């Protein structure tokens, strides 16, 4: 019996996956090197995020919950940097806390670096409150008695000696919490926060779709979606950051992925058609 020679579409369906990997790699390298800079369209959640921070007054206190590790550094780092730039530009006081071990050091170093640009003094204008194992009980504890829950910052300074937390008894003394995270920590902030504490959300893109219901109900006031959100925010703040670089490259990878999916489906239909014929 004569066997049918594999047609073009059969060969396409059986393509070595390493060629696909190389294709994606080359696509990204090319579009990182090309001087393509398309302006972002500011999405409604990003606009609301920006407006919420713009409404803050000098001296207001904000909690930054930084819970990302190096695995999502490409998305969360540009977000955190842009947010800290905005907070310091507004001369707002802030404290940082983490429920991820790596996030403790990563966020501390980033804040130290940006604080130097704005002349922010550690202990007076900002502080890092360290690592917590369980976010729910940490929020509950801070809502009841923040000094007894926090006890000391990452440098071992007792809370009573931190000027940034002078007069702060509970989490209710904060104006807002900004959650920069790759995991499901935002619903915990929404669930256990004191009344009146505004929640802003900076997720990786994976977590973004699920957050739209919280945006709709007003439980979350604004959101920056991954690197794209960081690009929008950098554009609003008129600063240069990695968000714009990454987002501009992401879109062309999306084009490649879409074309590849379409190609795969066309090859499947033609192959099936040839077999049935």
């Amino acid at each position, binding site marked *: 019996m004569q066997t049918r020679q594999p047609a073009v579409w059969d060969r396409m369906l059986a393509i070595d996956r390493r060629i696909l990997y190389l294709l994606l790699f080359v696509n990204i390298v090319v579009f990182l090197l090309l001087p393509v800079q398309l302006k972002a369209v500011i999405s409604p959640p990003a606009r609301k995020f920006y407006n919420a921070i713009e409404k803050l007054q000098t001296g207001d206190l904000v909690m930054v919950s930084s819970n990302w590790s190096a695995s999502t*550094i490409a998305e969360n780092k540009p977000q955190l940097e842009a947010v800290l730039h905005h907070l310091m530009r507004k001369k707002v006081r802030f404290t940082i806390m983490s429920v991820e071990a790596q996030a403790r050091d990563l966020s501390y170093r980033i804040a130290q670096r940006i604080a130097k640009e704005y002349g922010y003094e550690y202990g007076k204008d900002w502080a890092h409150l360290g690592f917590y194992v369980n976010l729910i009980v940490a929020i509950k504890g801070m809502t009841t008695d923040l000094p007894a829950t926090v006890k000391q910052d990452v440098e071992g300074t007792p809370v009573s000696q931190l000027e940034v937390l002078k007069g702060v008894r509970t989490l209710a003394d904060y104006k807002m919490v900004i959650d920069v995270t790759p995991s499901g920590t935002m619903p915990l902030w929404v669930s256990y926060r004191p009344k009146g504490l505004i929640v802003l959300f900076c997720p990786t893109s*994976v977590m973004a779709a699920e957050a739209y219901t919280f945006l709709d109900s007003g439980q979350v006031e604004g959101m920056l979606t991954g690197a794209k959100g960081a690009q929008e925010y950098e554009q609003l703040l008129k600063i240069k950051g990695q968000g714009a670089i990454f987002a501009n490259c992401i879109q062309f990878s999306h084009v490649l*992925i879409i074309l590849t999916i379409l190609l795969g489906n066309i090859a499947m239909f033609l192959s099936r058609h040839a077999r049935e014929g």
Partner: protein
Amino acid sequence: MDWLQEFLPLSWERLNIWIGVICTFAIYSILYRENPFYRFFEHMYIGLAAGYSLGPLLVDILYRYWVEPLTQGFWAWSFVVPFGLYLYFIYSERYGWLSRIVIGVLIGASAGLFFQEFASRQLPQLNSALAKPLWQTSNNDVVISDVLNNWIFIVFLLSVLTYFTFSFEHRGVVRRVATFGRWFLMIGLGAMFGNTVMARTALLIGRIYYLLHDWLRISIGGG
């Protein structure tokens, strides 16, 4: 020549970058095929990650919440860690059940806290769904496009909820509504898929940016 001097690991800073690059290529080598180079760095990664977590755990948690109160004389805290160490009996066949006492504390606390989570998380969303204006009146300043969007919202919500109701068999009208619910669910899943692709691609772009910008010192377009 200047570029070559800047590129080679001739200073601490450049050596550090080269270490990062070797780590990256070691992990990426799995994409070609399984190899000992990848396995070596994979095991090193797991060891480093496990080792790193001990610092924050021991100092930020145990030292801050247990050692310090003890040094201040609050003696009642001395029972917490011995009690918590019962967890490690999980590896013993004979005494393994003791670990379930501590697990019971953690699970009981999580369960007790969940009531507040349900009330604060789901009920406002229910309220928001029920409060959506479905027609214009003289009292509200709702525009017609919002009314249409609100009707779409309610139809989508009820359809998907119908699809998820497995307590009875879907027949007749209910079956058709559930089918629409499944289609609408695909819209949500499509949004999640699109965002997931964006997230993962961003992580890869971050790595390649590191290789091009930090290691090869190539100027990145527009950056």
